[in-house]
């Protein structure tokens, strides 16, 4: 029987994986954007699981807002990425080092 705990463990695993993906990713910026999306999806899964388990609808409504905002967010992220590619002809994370830090 799959219970609430399974969903919560899965969502926290997804969250940790995406966080690690952002922090140690040294290859591709697209992967970084995917990790950001995955992070929000992990949160969505958590919300839906809790909301379903406790029969409280507001968590599922929150998910709709997160989905919409995540779409807008990835649009902006990809737009910046396209501009950066035009400027530098590469989107390697390693090459994003003009500003020291």
């Amino acid at each position, binding site marked *: 029987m799959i219970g609430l705990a399974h969903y*919560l463990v899965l*969502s926290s695993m997804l*969250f940790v994986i*995406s*966080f690690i993906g*952002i922090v140690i990713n040294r290859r591709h*910026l697209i992967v*970084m954007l995917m990790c*950001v999306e995955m*992070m*929000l999806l*992990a*949160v969505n899964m*958590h*919300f839906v699981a*809790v*909301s379903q388990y*406790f029969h*409280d609808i*507001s*968590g599922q*409504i*929150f998910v709709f*807002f*997160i989905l919409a*905002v995540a779409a*807008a*967010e990835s649009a*902006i*992220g990809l*737009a*910046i*990425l396209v*501009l*950066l590619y035009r*400027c*530098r002809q590469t989107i390697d994370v390693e090459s*994003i080092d*003009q*500003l*020291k*830090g």
Partner: protein
Amino acid sequence: MGTFLIANKVLLPEMLVFLMSLLTLMAGVFLPTRMRESSALVFAQTALWGAIALAFWGMLAGTVTLFSGTVVVDHLAFTLKVLSYVTASGVCFYAHAYLKAMKMPVLEFYVLTLLSVLGLSALLSANHFITLFVGLELMSMPLYAMIALRRHRSDCLEAALKYFVIGAMATGILLYGIALLYGATHTLGFPDVANAIPVAMHGHHLLMSFALVFITIGIAFKLGIVPCHMWLPDVYEGAPTIMTMMVATLAKIAALGMLLRLLVSVMPALFAEWQPLLMVLVVLSLFVGNVTAVKQANLKRLLAYSSIAQLSYLLLGVFTGTTAGYSAAMFYLATYVLTTLAAFALIMCFRREDGEEAVDIADYAGLFQHHPWHAVMFAIVMFSLAGMPPFVGFIAKLQIFQALLQTGPFWLVIYALLLTVVAAYYYIAVVKVMFFDESQTPLRKVSLGLGNGLLTLNALGVVMLGVQPSGLLTWLSL
């Protein structure tokens, strides 16, 4: 019907800002080219000053909760909203001539600024996690786009990308914290959550602590305090200076608003948990911010590290957990915003020989000989940031330390005071370069148009408020 009218009244500022942003967009399409840019400025200023007037009018109704308790307009929301409208109006004045000189799109700037301010208002009025989230995103997304407005400069794009990735990650972390809190309390409205936390603490204490840590770290990323500060100097340096000004003012207002709402209004029951958490952040930020700022050669990076240090004083006010502390933090924020506006406007005034912005401290050597008044204004700003009397930064620090002395711990007061001395060193070093070093090549001064007069007012305001702070202090006290 009665409720609807009240709803109209207190939400009129937001409605005005929203409508004017659409109108500005329309102006870009329908007005003849020569009228576009100045009319956009007029629309933006009308929106912001109209919103301030309407906010004062709406506040006559007292604290109001709207839309099934998802939006609240209380004193905290009201004061921070007015502060953000005034700030945005100042930014728009400073921006006008700068945008043209830098060949940045002017109309888009005003539209996005108004939308960002709209998001900030929604965030400050939030009484429900959904409102908070939507407001936060509406505030942040225009900022990401605006940093990338100079789309041929790869350093601006890099700053935009860094700000975007960190901002999105911070949102993710904050949301995960909210999701954990939702798991423990099964509700999302702020008053309900505040009531449910003491009950849920018995069964889900660990879950609650995790939620608190995630939410605090999310806000710490937005504030840019240690250990979540790595992005801040890069974004400050890479972004066009007008955008650095916005990130340094509007985004900080949002972060303090969130901090006061979430920690103080929603999670007062967890005070014993979040106070040590804030203490760790403050101790680290004070040290790293002040000590790293000493060896910076770039003025924008120096201001970035100095902002880390400045914000940790603000956190000290929240850390005390008393009303006096929160009021001191509000006052500190207002003065920090005022001083930062002047600091970045001064940087926008000067160009090197090749037309690039003068951002190295060495560029400003001997500024006093060529542009004495601007050098004096720089000195006023730097002394105020360092916290010297009679400037307003002194009063702000004094308030924080007074509040902290009443609650302790005493060693933290001593520690913060010692690091204030370090801070004074690097601020005065900048002033020394401007007044006493020999200049190699004189800087070219560019006019800020309407911003010139505002800059003088702004710098004088830093002095005047230092001499006469009582009005602002009373207005901002919670």
